[in-house]
Structures are given as structure tokens and as C-alpha cells.
């Protein structure tokens, strides 16, 4: 009896055991916080404790909160400034790395260096570069006659500073993903194109880009998810001020959530913001998917 029961369990039960660790961890640290946050977001809960169920009050307050809309605009603005140049640049870098070069390995590893640098260190260095009085950027601009810029004072300048941090850090990572995809493209396609008289740029546009589209879509999605949650760079750019500048010039929605939850200790409201970020990320993801599908349909 015993061996056969054991082997039956081994056959039917053990696969579940093997996948169980992930699902247990996901339930404890992924699913549970998500649902618990949803529950808290329906309650009035501050430092003095849970003051009861308030329905969707936190959400309606959120929709009427100009600081939330400001943070959303900032997040989307930073998303554009930190994604578009980054992915274009990554594409160019990948194309260059895909050619026979001297010390190729060095360059390929070199583009990874920014990712292994700690975000805090990056932010401190960039904070110094964009310093108002003694920053290197203002020093260089001074050479061409531009008067010193207070980078934190206005929206556009602070966005440029923060997005340059993000771009610097993630361009290499995306370039490597593109490079991996490019190496999978069969060489004979290029040879055929060359015989047909297509130049390097034309080959890039008509062969490389279409064939690495899955990688492109992947990086766009990942960049958008990261961008929607942008937190550390703008926080450290403002020296740890979660309100993101005197007039909330560079406060992202993740910072807004943190401010409400852990500075004002308004946990119910903070949880509503967290859920709104989640819903917005899903929404942007769906839009992205639709556009991706449209593009795919269009070229085939």
C-alpha cells in the first residue's frame, strides 16, 4: 500500500510542491499587500488608528486633489523625457555594439556599469552636477554665457535633471536587450540587402528594427512600468523632500503616495493613491498593448 500511495502522490502532488514556494511568497508579499491596501483604501486610517469604513471617500477626495493631478502630470512628463531619448539612444548604442569593434567585450560590459551603481550614489553625484551655485552643469553653461540655473526651481529644468539621471542609468540595460535581439537576426538577410544595394541606414530601418520588435515592445513596457513608479531619483534630487520641490515641481505619484502615507500618516488616503497608481499602470499598459497590436497589424 505504502509505496503505491507515495508514488501516486509523487506523480500528482509533487509538481504542486515544486511551484509552491513562488506562489506562497507571491501570496504573502504580492497578493496579500495588494488586497490589504485595497481594504485600507476604503477606510479612514491615520496615526491614531483605524476610524472606520468610509467607502470611496478617499478616491473621490483624490480625484479632487490638485496635488495628485500635478503629480500625475509630472510622472507622465518625466516618463516621456526619461523613456523616449533612452530607448532611441539604446537602439543606436546596440547597433554600434553589434559591429566588429576593438575591445568589444569591454564596451559591452561598460554599458552595464551604470546599472550596478547604486541609485543613491547616482542621485548624489547628479545632485552635485546640477547644483545651483557650484554645479558642473551650470559651470559649463556659464562658459557659453548662460546664467546659472536653479534646476529645482522650475518644472522643466527639474524634469530634465531627473530624467537625465534615469536615462544615464538605464540606457545600457536596454541596449544590451536590443543587442541580444540583434544577434539573433540571420546574417544572410543583411547580405541579401547589401546585394540589393541597401545602405547601412536602410538595412537598420528595414531589417534590424522590424526583427527586434518583440524586444522593443518589452523595453517599452518595462520602461513605462518603471516610469510610473519613479521615486528614488526625484526624491534624492530634492534631497529627500517627498513634496518634490517648493511648488511640487518634480513630485511623482509614487512620492505623493509616500508623502500621504508616511509623512502625513494618512494611510487610508495613501492606500487609495497606491491603488490609483496600480490602475493607471494597468491602463497605460493596455493602451501600449493596443498600439503594439495596431503596429504589428499595420506592417504585416
Amino acid at each position: 500500500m505504502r509505496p503505491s500511495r507515495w508514488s501516486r502522490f509523487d506523480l500528482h502532488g509533487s509538481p504542486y510542491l515544486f511551484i509552491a514556494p513562488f506562489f506562497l511568497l507571491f501570496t504573502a508579499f504580492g497578493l496579500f499587500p495588494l488586497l490589504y491596501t485595497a481594504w485600507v483604501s476604503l477606510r479612514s486610517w491615520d496615526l491614531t488608528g483605524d476610524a472606520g469604513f468610509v467607502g470611496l471617500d478617499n478616491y473621490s477626495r483624490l480625484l479632487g486633489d490638485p496635488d495628485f493631478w500635478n503629480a500625475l502630470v509630472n510622472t507622465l512628463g518625466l516618463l516621456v523625457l526619461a523613456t523616449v531619448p533612452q530607448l532611441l539612444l539604446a537602439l543606436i548604442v546596440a547597433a554600434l555594439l553589434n559591429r566588429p569593434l576593438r575591445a568589444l567585450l569591454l564596451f559591452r560590459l561598460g554599458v552595464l556599469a551604470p546599472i550596478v551603481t547604486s541609485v543613491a550614489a547616482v542621485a548624489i553625484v547628479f545632485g552635485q552636477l546640477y547644483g545651483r551655485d557650484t554645479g558642473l552643469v551650470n559651470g559649463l553653461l556659464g562658459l557659453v554665457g548662460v546664467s546659472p540655473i536653479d534646476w529645482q526651481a522650475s518644472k522643466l529644468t527639474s524634469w530634465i535633471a531627473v530624467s537625465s539621471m534615469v536615462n544615464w542609468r538605464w540606457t545600457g540595460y536596454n541596449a544590451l536587450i536590443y543587442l541580444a535581439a540583434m544577434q539573433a537576426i540571420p546574417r544572410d538577410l543583411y547580405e541579401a540587402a547589401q546585394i540589393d544595394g541597401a545602405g547601412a541606414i536602410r538595412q537598420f530601418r528595414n531589417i534590424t528594427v522590424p526583427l527586434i520588435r518583440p524586444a522593443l515592445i518589452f523595453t517599452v513596457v518595462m520602461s513605462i512600468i518603471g516610469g510610473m513608479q519613479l521615486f528614488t531619483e526625484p526624491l534624492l534630487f530634492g534631497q529627500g523632500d517627498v513634496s518634490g520641490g517648493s511648488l511640487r515641481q518634480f513630485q511623482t505619484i509614487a512620492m505623493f503616495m509616500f508623502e500621504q502615507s508616511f509623512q502625513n500618516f494618512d494611510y487610508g488616503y495613501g492606500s487609495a493613491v497606491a491603488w490609483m497608481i496600480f490602475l493607471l499602470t494597468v491602463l497605460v499598459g493596455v493602451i501600449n498593448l493596443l498600439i503594439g497590436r495596431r503596429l504589428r497589424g499595420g506592417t504585416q
Partner: protein
Amino acid sequence: MSARWIIPAIGTAVALVAVAGCGGSGGDDAAADGTITLTVKTFSQFGYEDLYKEYEASHPGIKIKADNIAKLADYTPKLQQWLTAGSGAGDVVALEEGILVKLMAKPDQFANLLDYGAGSLKGNFLDWKWNQALTTDGSKLVGLGTDIGAQGMCYRSDLFAKAGLPTDRDKVGALWPTWDAYLATGKKFAGANTGASFYDTSGSIYQNILMQQGDTTYFDRSNKLIVDSNPGVRKAWDQTISMVDAGLSGKLQMWSPAWNAGFKKGTFATIPCPAWMLGIIKDQAGPENAGKWDVARVPGEGAVRGGSFLAVTSQSKHPKEAAELAKFLTSPEGQTAAFKAKNNFPSAPKAIDDPAVAGAKNEYFNNAPVGQIFGKSAKELKPVYLGPDNQQVGDAIGDALTAVEQGKLKSEEAWTKALADAQRAAGK
């Protein structure tokens, strides 16, 4: 790009597990032999290590378990978790002033220390410190005061000499009996073109002026927002704006690299400095600037920034013993010991007058008699009621001031915006 979000998530998860672990271990507080273990939760440095030993020695049967979290920002959310969960907070908890005023709105998570004979200790504390932890109807005492951020005005004597101003700390203090006189001195300083600004940032100047307006600031005692009708707030705002207009501000953000570097390079001449800032100035300015920084009195009457309290949780199983321990730690003797250990400036007048505190001098600051200067400013301050949303309203006004400094808003626009933000912060 998502990779960087996984790491903080794992960190948080680990922290949560660690917290759960701490919470679980709190159960063994009454051992079989009748020994009572009291858990004390503190943040930063309270300087209690020797006091714990002393208390255990004089109270056989009591053991103290000390839990310290280095950063206040990490401590506060955990404290909230413990309080909400109804376990894990231990017996005695340290409460920073900003947290205390929030919790005063609903003090039932803490034992009433008046029930444990703390009422007779009123004379041990500065009046305003005592009142901060007392409910407005006077029926419940939530905490006993520990330290306070008594302030002086630190200044660069070499820059003062360059500007033709006196450098002796008594004469410097005599330059600014009031904030108007401080403004006039600042104008004189600015006129001398030393290349340095008169002070670092307007936020702390405003805060100092505000706290001297007395009685109430943003909220009245029934927690109604009075920021728009309290003349003291507007006066502090106007006085600060006139200093910005006179070009006295260095427009530096506190804790920014430029602010830190400013101590060494002498980019500003004065800064209101609480007791705890002296160490920061010494570290930032470095040994080569020893003796260049000095401490004088603050303009106006009295100046304190922040401070802390000890409270007994209502989840404590031994509130009586915990209250005794809190009384011991906050006694004048306890506060003097904490000052000796970590320079935490006492809130007990008797400790302030103790030779160990009153006679304290700071070598780096030209042997300034900091014990006397800080003690005087702490005793002169009149009680001010803060209200639970004090910090949020204060942040709104502070941000508006920064916007004026940055030239992004005119004074009136900034004031209107600050009021609107304050109303939103308080009106939720």
C-alpha cells in the same frame, strides 16, 4: 527597468518579517520567578544605557529590554504598526514632538500617567513641555518630557569681523535683541559685501519667529485651523519676507550638499542652531575652522526646535512599573545623565541648572558656554500649542517661503497658496 523595484520590495519584505519577529518575542515579560521585563523603545540616541543599569540595580525584579531604531523616519511607521496591532510596542515608548501632537488627538493608546502619580512631577518640567503632553482638558497626561532642541544663533566670527561687526558673543547677542534688529544687522552685513549671505535658509528663521509669538500658531486649542486669522503667523511671515527682500537668505536647502559645504566655506554667516546641530557644524566645518564658529543668543525671547517624550503604552501589562521607569528616566537626574551621555538638552529646569549642564562649554565654538545660552533660551520660551496637523500646515508654509526665495511666487501669491494648502491639509 522593473529590476530596481524588486530590490526595495524584497528589502521591505525582509523588514516586515523582522518586525513580525520582534513583535512575537514580546510575550515573555513575566518570568516564572516573578521578574518583570520592561521593554523600552527609542529612536536615535537617548543616552539611557547607564541609567538602565542603575535602575536594574536599584530595582531587583525588574529587567529592562532596550530596543533602539536608529532613524526616526524608520521608527515612526513601526510605532504605528505596534500601536495598531495592539502588541509589540512594549511598555515605554519614546515619542518625538511631531508624533506626540498628532497622537494627542486620540490618546487612548497610552496610559494616563496622572493615574500613576505623575501629577506631582509638574514642577520638574518646563511648563510648555509639560503642557504639550497634557490633553487640553487637563485630565490625561500622555508623556513625560525628555530632551528639547534648545537653540542658539551660531555665527561665523571671521565673516563678522570682515563685515566690521563685533565678534564677541555677548556683543553679537546684543546686536539682535529682536528680529527687527537681526534684520538691521543683516542689512549692515549685506552692505559689507563679504560674498556670504547672512543666513542659510528662511524656513528656520520663520520657524523661530513663529514659536515666539506665543500661545497658539496654526491651531487653537479646539484644533480649529486659525492660520489665516492668527496675527502671530502673519507677523512671522512678513518679518521673514522682509529678510528675503533684503537679500539676506542664502536660499540653501537644509541638508543639501551646498548647505553642508556652506559650514566649511563660510557661505552664510549665521544659522539658528539647536543643541544637536553643534555636532553637525563641527563635522561639516572640520578642524581647520575650529574657533571660527561661535554661539550667541537667539533674537527675541526663547527658541526651541523639537524634542521628545516618554509614554507608557496602554498595551503594557505592567503599566505601574513602566510608569515608574519613565518617571526615573525623565527625572532631573536622569536628564542630566542623558545630557552627559549624548548631549540631549534637558527639559527639566533643575537639570538645566545642574552644573554639569549649565557649566557645559563647547571647545570647538571658542569655548562658548552653550549650557547657559541654551538653558536661557529654553526657559524664556512661552508655551505654544501646536495641534495635530501642525507639521503639514508648517510644511505648506515652508514650501511657499521657498518658492518666494526661488523667485517663483510673489509674497502675496505664496501666502494665498500656503493658506489654501493649509486648509486642504487640515480639512480632510
